[in-house]
């Protein structure tokens, strides 16, 4: 199993190389570079600019710059953000946990809601639960995340029931540990609902089809024949097998969540990776963009790896071999 994990992590490298190379090439095509706004600032020493230009090789063609950037990254130096005046690594370390937290809570919401609903819907196809959840899922999948986010913010602004944005209150630093936890949880409710709704609908549809599929198999008939209650059959025998295809797609679900959270974070003023990368793009803060893309893709691949491990854990037929 260790060998399997190492092999998967090794596969991460060419992927990251390709992504960063692509982003680097694309960003170098865009007019201006990240020093353009710096040069316009008067309080920065020209010697410093020249030094930075040299250390990151901005006077050279982009492929050489890429090699230099890569060399710096190997020394764990992700560069410097001009907008925030801090090293990129520090910036990402601040922002990435928020995005991971939001993605996980959304995934959790999607699963806790979708699993029982899908099993109940598939247990009686065409019944009222089935029809209701199918219609709701159809509708939910059609709502753009940012529109939902707008509605949520409007609702929060009108009623005052929820915070309008952010992850913490102003007085967060002065709260006791337990109040800190509840403060964050309170701020997470709306973003999680907004981001998770599409996930609930998507998971529901896939899982319902899987459960219906598994219900046809002979061991289900056998389980029923030996007198197991329908609850045990559905939730112990059917569900475990129906979940497998879903487990293997968590990685892609995570990709969707990262993209979705970019929009939701921007509307809801949530201090995560998505907002960071968007603002960095607008300001051509090149190293922040690259660093975020590296972290985003790594998260994705690690998510894929975890989902493979979960699949192997839940399904003894799956082996770690090739």
């Amino acid at each position, binding site marked *: 199993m260790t060998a399997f994990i190492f092999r998967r992590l090794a596969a991460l490298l060419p992927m990251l190389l390709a992504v960063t190379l692509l982003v680097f090439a694309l960003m170098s095509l*865009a007019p201006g570079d990240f020093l353009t706004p710096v040069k316009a600032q008067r309080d920065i020493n020209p010697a410093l600019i020249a030094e930075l230009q040299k250390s990151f090789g901005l006077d050279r063609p982009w492929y050489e710059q890429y090699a230099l950037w890569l060399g710096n990254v190997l020394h764990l130096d992700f560069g410097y953000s001009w907008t925030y005046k801090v090293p990129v690594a520090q910036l990402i370390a601040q922002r990435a946990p928020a995005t991971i937290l939001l993605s996980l809570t959304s995934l959790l919401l999607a699963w806790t809601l979708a699993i029982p609903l899908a099993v109940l819907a598939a247990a009686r196809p065409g019944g009222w639960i089935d029809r209701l959840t199918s219609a709701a899922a159809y509708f939910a999948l059609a709502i753009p995340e940012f*529109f939902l986010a707008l509605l949520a913010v*409007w609702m929060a602004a009108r009623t005052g029931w929820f915070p309008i944005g952010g992850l913490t209150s102003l007085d967060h630093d002065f709260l006791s540990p337990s109040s800190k936890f509840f403060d964050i949880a309170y701020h997470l409710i709306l973003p999680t609902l907004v981001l998770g709704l599409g996930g609930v609908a998507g998971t529901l549809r896939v899982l319902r089809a899987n459960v219906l599929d598994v219900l046809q198999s002979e061991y289900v008939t056998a389980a029923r024949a030996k007198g197991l209650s329908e609850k045990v059959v559905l939730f112990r025998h059917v569900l475990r097998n129906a979940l497998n295809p879903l487990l293997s797609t968590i*990685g892609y679900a995570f*990709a969707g969540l990262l993209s979705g959270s970019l929009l939701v974070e921007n509307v809801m003023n949530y201090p995560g990776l998505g907002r960071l990368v968007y603002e960095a793009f607008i300001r051509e803060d090149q190293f922040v963009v690259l660093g975020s893309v590296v972290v985003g893709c790594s998260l*994705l691949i690690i998510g894929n790896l975890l989902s493979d491990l979960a699949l192997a854990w839940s399904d003894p037929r799956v082996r770690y071999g090739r």
Partner: protein
Amino acid sequence: MVADILRSLLRRPAGLISATLLVLLYGMALFAPFLSPTTPSAQNLDRTYHPPTALVWQDGHLSVQLYQLVDPSTAAYQPLPERSVPLRWFSEGPSYKLFGLFPAHRHLFTVPDSHPIYLLGSDATGRDVFTRLLYGAGISLSIGLIGVFLTSLLGLTIGGLAGYLGGWPDSLAMRLTEFLMAVPGLYLLLALRAALSSRFPSDATFLLIVVILSALGWAGTARVVRGLVLSLRERPFILAANIIGQRPWTILFRHLLPNTFSYLIVAATLSVPGYILGEAALSFLGLGIQEPASSWGLMLGQAQDIKIFMLNFWWLLTPGAAIILTVIAFNLLGDALRDAVDPRFRLPGK
């Protein structure tokens, strides 16, 4: 075969409803200049954040209620009692070009003496939201169709070639699709947008967005087409074509690819919403369609203005509702189309 599918599609309630809805939506987009009482960039700075104007029945005419600005700072308008102006039907108004070709100046309805009519309210510069919604429909809806067309073309060619040729072109294409599917889409979208913006003049953003969305979207189609071609390749009719000595290109384009069309048409219908949502997301972030043009995403983006938030929630709702309606219609149509084509999807020789 097309007529068969169409008849079977329209016999299903879901198919009929969604097809009618889409025809209506696209018709509205096509005839936007005729249906709207004014032009999308006509401002009226005395009438900002106007609430939707009421229509009343007066003296046997459908008339528009007149309003009075009570407090400019909170954009409070009050209806003037008993004051309304009858609508004029098929009257002359601002000139436009129908379908971008035919100069015309008739509108379905206008109000005489340039009294304002805001069926859905007005925005921060007093432009008519209803008009902008109609004009925006043209952009939002056509991006879906053009994008899907380009994607299908790309996916069909690449997937077909990969499946038919096998070997290194196949693995190259497949690694590329895996790459595209594994990277968070919006991140790449942003990168492409930043890189390509200087290559396109600002009035060609429409084209730019279509190109970006299609460049990222072909992967899924290509993978399935490849799979289909792989399985079709071993069928007797392809073996027969091989034996009588037809050239590989003829076999690919005349025999293999046409057999993937029924799948492709369903997949294309189901992926139109992705493009509409993609354009909306980009425009919403301010990276898509630019002012003074209008699109649904752009209108939603401008609705983040705090004043609209508190005063004119109508404006916020309508483009979003239009997007949801369109997406649902396309999904319904795709599902109905899939059932109509064949639940297990038709392959020759079955």
